[in-house]
């Protein structure tokens, strides 16, 4: 192994350097200049994102613990773009007086979790996978408790760390059973020996339960709403978009490779969990008034849709899941971006506060509407294409009734998304939120997500690229 081999871990290395650089800059800056960290970090992360798109060699490191190929790079790049948008959207909030002391902590913790996710996606065995998962989870708990002087935020941090610990324990138990049953922790050799003996099925169930916690699938979703509501809004959007996206990526890779042999067995379970997740997520979202809780439950329901692609069980399923996550990142960041912009400037975050928003802040309202339509799967925005392909992949495996249930759920979700549209456009309000102008960074973040919502759907090239890569992982 020489130095150039190490470079295939480009994403992880650069992020590590980035986190350290932020730390060093923070040490050397005088207290009143702390805000300078923000533009510097943004610029550095932007460079990191751009460099990430440069072509790279596939390869294996550390005797198979770490692997990378074009598809995995693609996943990491998707996450990078999402994080970039989140960083842009959090600038205004970070500049607030109360956060001045801990700006660098926000970036360092965030980058650390991103490193964890990258390692998790690139893992070649369960050990690296578990390390990545933990690295991606524990700092988020600190992030959730970022505004720790607020009880809710502190509570969110504790809830997140406790439920993560529990789920990690279950997951680890599953991994140990897998090791016991197959004698290996390497994905490739586990895959060859995986059979549908009771113990291996049990091992899978434990493993999947752990992942279901991370993805907040029903019935393992109970932590989600409280944590999402308590955490600062930008951390919430990070949790619901990036964290969940990374978990979905690694889950689909493992389901399609390692556990592929027991697909006929787990498909029944997935079917049931998909129906439960979509339905219960939707039914809870119906009654939410707090925008953060509202988006939390809606994102639970969205996770249920991801399972449809996994059930598809073919290249189309894989492609549609990755594509859906990509579209979901942009749509959800559009919605979270608006909520964040409004919440940072005015401190308002319930649905009633949005009454008559269109009369004062038309652009924000339009972006919010488009994002919500995209989440609901309405054309011409990208969410329509994302959902359509997911449904198509489930239908390709013959799950027509599941598709029907899913589309009905999409209709239910349209109801509560329209409630927000109704608040903004239709409801009359004596005193709507006053007009405000967001700063440049926030606007860039919003425009980026808005562009993504429009472009991703019509630009079929993106789907085709993902599709051509998805062949690489399947056998």
């Amino acid at each position, binding site marked *: 192994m020489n130095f150039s081999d190490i470079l295939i871990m480009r994403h992880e290395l650069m992020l590590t350097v980035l986190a350290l650089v932020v730390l060093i800059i923070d040490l050397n800056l005088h207290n009143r200049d702390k805000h300078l960290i923000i533009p510097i970090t943004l610029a550095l992360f932007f460079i990191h994102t751009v460099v990430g798109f440069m072509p790279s060699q596939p390869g294996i490191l550390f005797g198979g613990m770490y692997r990378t190929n074009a598809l995995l790079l693609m996943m990491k790049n998707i996450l990078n773009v999402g994080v970039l948008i989140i960083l842009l959207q959090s600038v205004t909030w970070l500049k607030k007086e109360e956060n001045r002391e801990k700006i660098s902590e926000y970036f360092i913790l965030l980058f650390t979790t991103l490193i964890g996710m990258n390692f998790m996606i690139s893992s070649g065995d369960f050990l690296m996978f578990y390390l990545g998962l933990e690295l991606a989870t524990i700092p988020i708990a600190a992030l959730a408790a970022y505004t720790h002087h607020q009880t809710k935020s502190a509570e969110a941090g504790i809830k997140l760390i406790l439920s993560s610990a529990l789920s990690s324990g279950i997951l680890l138990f599953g991994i140990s059973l897998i090791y016991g049953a197959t004698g290996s922790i390497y994905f490739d050799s586990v895959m060859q020996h995986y059979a549908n003996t009771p113990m291996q099925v049990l091992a899978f169930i434990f493993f999947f339960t752990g992942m279901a916690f991370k993805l907040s699938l029903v019935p393992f979703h109970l932590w989600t709403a409280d944590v999402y509501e308590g955490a600062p809004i930008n951390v919430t959007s990070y949790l619901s978009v990036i964290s969940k996206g990374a978990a979905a990526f690694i889950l689909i890779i493992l389901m399609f490779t390692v556990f592929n042999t027991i697909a006929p067995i787990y498909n029944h379970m997935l079917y049931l969990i998909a129906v439960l997740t979509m339905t219960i997520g939707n039914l809870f979202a119906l009654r939410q008034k707090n925008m953060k809780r509202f988006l939390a439950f809606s994102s639970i329901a969205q996770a249920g849709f991801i399972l449809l692609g996994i059930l598809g069980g073919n290249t189309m399923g894989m*492609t549609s899941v990755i594509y859906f996550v990509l579209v979901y990142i942009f749509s959800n960041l559009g919605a979270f971006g608006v909520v964040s912009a409004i919440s940072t400037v005015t401190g308002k975050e319930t649905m009633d506060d949005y009454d008559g928003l269109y009369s004062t802040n038309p652009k924000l309202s339009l972006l919010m509407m488009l994002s919500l339509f995209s989440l609901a799967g309405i054309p011409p925005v990208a969410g329509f294409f994302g959902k*359509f392909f997911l449904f*198509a992949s489930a*239908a390709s495996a013959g799950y027509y009734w599941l598709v029907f249930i899913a589309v009905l759920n*999409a209709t239910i979700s*349209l109801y509560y998304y329209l409630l927000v549209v109704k608040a903004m456009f239709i409801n009359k309000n004596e005193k709507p939120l006053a007009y405000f102008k967001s700063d440049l960074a926030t606007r860039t973040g919003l425009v980026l997500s808005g562009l993504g919502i429009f472009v991703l759907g019509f630009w079929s090239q993106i789907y085709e690229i993902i599709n051509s890569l998805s062949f690489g992982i399947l056998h």
Partner: protein
Amino acid sequence: MNILNFFIIIPLLTVGGILLTKDLKQSRLVSAIGMGAQLILAFVLVYLYLSERSAGNTEPMLFMFDVVWFPSLNIHYAIGVDGISVAMIALTGLVVFAGIFASWKMEYLPREFFISLIILATGVFGFFISIDLFTMFLFYELAVIPMYILIGIWGSGPKEYSAMKLTLMLMAGSALLLVGLLGIYFFSAPDGNPLTFNIMEISKVVIPIEIQRFLFPFTFIGFGILGALFPFHTWSPDGHASAPTAVSMLHAGVLMKLGGYGAFRVAIFLMPEAAHEQAWIFLILTSISVVYGAFSAIVQKDLKYINAYSSVSHCGLVLFAVLMMNQTAMNGAIIQMISHGLMTALFFALIGMIYGRTHTRMINEMGGLMKVIPFLGVVYVIAGLASLGLPGFSGFVAEMTIFVGAFQHVDVFHRVITIIAASSIVITAVYILRVVGILLLGPIKNDHFLHLDDAKWYERISTITLVLAITAIGTAPWWLSNMINYSLAPIVERLSAIQITGLF
């Protein structure tokens, strides 16, 4: 460039133009110019289509244009028209044009109103030119969603309830539809060819009958909800009653036709075996629509509700005729779509104009309007007579053809059900004449009505356009029905080759 692409491009340009405008005057002018151009384009298309045909072009679809969109799924942006879609496009052009003039005085958020209206129209135009199921579905949903905003913001009465009910029911319909379309897609190539969404390609293969049995109800009901199929019609009266004038016109006039058109172009054309098997169930449902809609219209007091239930009845007749699956009846179905589209748009335009003057839609509170607003009164009578099927207007041509076609079936079931459906003509006469009597004739009940102004110039443009079209079809139906018949022939041929019959 292909002429059909302009049916998407012009509305998009118009939307872009409206974005640049500042107030009502500018935005309505831009909309009128854009949709006027669209109307002219529609007639150019009719002319081009007819000259192609007379030049001996026998392709089923003309002006085809095909771009691969998602190569790995074989999704195309594929467009093309035959006589049926050309007729529907001309109808849409007329109704949208009239709708713009009917909303000439839209004071509240005019730009947003016209943009939503034109996006809706884009969806409808796109739907009619698509021959790829994916594109078709995309445009279908694009046409439905602006309804929520249009009714929710500019509607009247319980508008939020109606808008939500309408959107959710139609979206539930598209849920059924999506399952049907995906099923069709995955069985579109039994012989190992790449799967396709292209209607013309799929029509060359036979989808296995047991698959058809499962998919046909999904597809037919999916479209049927939009076509106000009983018992899924309940969105229609509420939605129409709450919608602003132009939206009611467009919705009843054009959007509901998407249901009939899709049911015939997709459900029946692609799954003829299952259609033959299951037609009897849907024939019963549609004849309930026809009769029940007409009876409901009798007891309504609100003008818009009367017309909404009348639409349920007339649109039920479209699905009824489509399910008869012979040349004459299906020809009648298409003419009925166009006839009803024009006349219901005229009705809703008139109701909007009358409401704008009297500030009530309750027929009991009005009377003798013929004396004060003679122009609107006369046009109302014309619309009413067209609706009840008086010879000389389009309604007569349509209903006559439908019932003659339906009666060509010799078995008892079809005969009985035709007779039941035909009774709606009498019921229609009852509610139309009743309204005309109370509303227009008799003494003037309210002194405020003595000084009402008659139609303004823009209202006259709106109504006269529609009246001309109705009488043109009524007096010279052959050009329309020849155009339709030519394109129907291959479809009916495919249907009649099938020997399967249902329960009856």
